[in-house]
């Protein structure tokens, strides 16, 4: 009798603590998942997506980068070949961020059709191309190019 009671108490307390921790782990999950989109998809956003943190990957358009005269940050155009979106960025871009290179930006699509970003991740696009394609000199299909940015 005593043993059974003790066992129940033990199982209950493990479940309680485990449950609380599990809730902690799962309850915080949803809001911290950030989705990745292409500029085309961003342009087609419904109002539900405004003010929602997302990541967008694309190529920084040559000649589109401008810095502010009075404060840190810059504006540039990000393209996936089909659609182009204007991006404003506050802060210091990473070392590898350059015009004509791939970049992933994190931030919010505003109602005014401008992407406000506070994080840029840049990569050498050429390093992320499959070797066979690079050798053959074949232009990457858009989809594969987008994929190469995230992987």
């Amino acid at each position, binding site marked *: 009798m005593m*043993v059974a009671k*003790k*066992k129940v*108490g*033990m199982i209950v*307390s*493990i479940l309680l*603590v*485990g449950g609380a*921790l*599990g809730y*902690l*782990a799962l309850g*915080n*999950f949803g809001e*911290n*998942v*950030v*989705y*990745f989109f292409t500029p085309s998809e961003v342009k087609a956003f419904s109002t539900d997506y405004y003010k929602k943190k997302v*990541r967008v990957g694309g190529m920084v358009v040559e000649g589109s980068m401008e*810095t502010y005269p009075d*404060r*840190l940050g810059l504006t540039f155009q990000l393209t996936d070949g089909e659609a182009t979106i204007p991006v404003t960025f506050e*802060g*210091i871009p990473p*070392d*590898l961020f350059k015009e004509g290179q791939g970049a992933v930006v994190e931030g919010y699509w505003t109602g005014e059709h401008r992407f406000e970003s506070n994080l840029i991740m840049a990569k*050498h696009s050429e*390093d*992320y191309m*499959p*070797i066979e394609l690079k050798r053959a000199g074949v232009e990457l299909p858009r989809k594969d190019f987008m994929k190469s940015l*995230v*992987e």
Partner: protein
Amino acid sequence: MIIEIGHFSVVIALVLAVFGIVSSSLALRTRDADWVRAGRMALTLIFILLSVGMAALIYSFLARDFSVHYVATNSNSQLPLFYTIAAVWGGHEGSLLLWVFILSTFSTIAVWLHWRTQPAIMPYLIGMECLVILGFLLLILFLSSPFDRLIPAPPDGKDLNPLLQDPAMVMHPPMLYMGYVGFSIPFSFAMAALLSGRLGEEWIKVTQRWTIFAWVCLTTGILLGGYWAYYELGWGGYWGWDPVENASFMPWLVGTAFLHSVMVQEKRKMFKVWNLFLIIVTFSLSLIGTFLVRSGVLTSVHTFATDPERGLYILIFVTTIIGIAFGALMLRANKLKSQIEMDSMVSRESVFLFNNLFFLVATATVFLGTLYPLMIETWQGAKVTVGPPYYNTVFMPIALGLLFLMGVGPYIPWRKASQASLKKNFLIPVVVGVVSTVVLFVLGIRSLFALTGAFVVGFSGAAIFIDVGKISSLYARRESINLLKGFFSAFTANQRRYSGLVTHVGVLVLVVGIIASTVYQTEKVVSMRVGDEFVMDDYRVKLERIHDVRGKNWSAQEGVFEVYEGDTLLTKLRPQKRVYDASQTPTTESAIYAKNMGHIFLTMPDVSADGVAVARGVINPLILWVWGGGGIMGLGVLLNIFRPRKRDE
């Protein structure tokens, strides 16, 4: 020619790995000791052959033989000698070879070391190790060989990734791999215990030092990685919940649970299935960690171009090992039922139980966050990431809970704690904890993390301090010596216990460093010209000049910043904006000044053509406690490994 010798040696090693598996199976079937000896010979030869393979690769790097594809892609004629050696494991082909080389080293040592005392285990140990070695050698030889030629040879190499040209990066991969691979020894002993049906405590006692050795290597590897990220990536933080950091953190979490949990089995013969489960999971996560990093399935600074074939192979290999291990565990589980029930919820057993629960939830959290993007991509085709805030939110309470248990565990009796003993052991620590919280509150600190942290650190720290004080004075009185001598006398007489507590103290120091440097970090980013200055906390930073400097394989613009406290010049910091010659890759090199156990951290991410520099200053209070705490943890482990052997060991 040299590289072909290496290649050929590794091919023979592969054949011998197959032989090792066959001979140990035959040894089990025929009970013929000659087959075991043959297996030992095979394993030893594998070690020698893989050493030749490693040596050949290192030689090719030093000889700058760019007709070797791997050398050409990972080094350059201008690369300094030190980094040329590190470049051997700078790419994934070479790092896999390093992995299997360390594995063969450890398994050969284990076989010779335990040969006389553990004869019954040997066939299993040799067979299991040869199986893992075989898996890696197949991968190396068929899917990612560092021995391939590149004909015609390019005039010069592509260069090692500039971010990896750093002293911490030289040691980071080997330490990490020694940790991963070190767990293979207790894993193999556990498998031997399962397969042979010798399910007592022996496998745990024999491998205790291996476990803790693996643990300290993994810990050091992780800390080195954090230290590198801290000053080399130039963002002033040391942990970003990057998938690859997570990959190394998961085996660490379960491994830590394991090395605590085995104590319950040693002392109370409980948790038998659980311990086998934990070591299987630890080693599996080590393999999965390698898989995640090396297959390129996750987005990270560490991963390389995706190769689906290689990813698929590693997945099959890892699944095989995990399948065998869990299959064996399931077959034997009924035999492992412990006869001993837990006596009370208020006992050391239950503290260990909750310790394990916390560590496993932590692991599950990291696992979920790291693999969820993969799952979503496979099933829904959408691309997602899980941000650092998720991990931070979940880990804060888990870490604080574990720290609290750390103060309770060593001072609560086995079986059942009476109320009197609880009061005697924990009254003062609770008071100290409350007082530390109140003091911080009065000083104006309002962060919940810092205040709760103060309670658990005060509580656990006081518990350890009282224990050490009591036992030292006991020994001092008993042997009529002074307190300090009493301390050493007590320490050496109970070295296993007190070395563990040294590690715990290290953890406390580390946690104080983490809390202070995350909650009270200040950051400032400014654009400035020569002569301009900016203020950060109590310091004034003035840009004195910008000039060009030249390194062996890079050139840089260097900013000279004067750091003043009041009117006194503290130091001149010289952050650089470098461009590496071969790859034309820019990097941002930080400059650091240590003061009051904290850091003034400065980078200069950009200098425009008309002389405007962007400077970024970060003040990280108590950051030295993070690295210092890591050092104390390591010291504790060394004291544990090199403790005098007791009669029952």
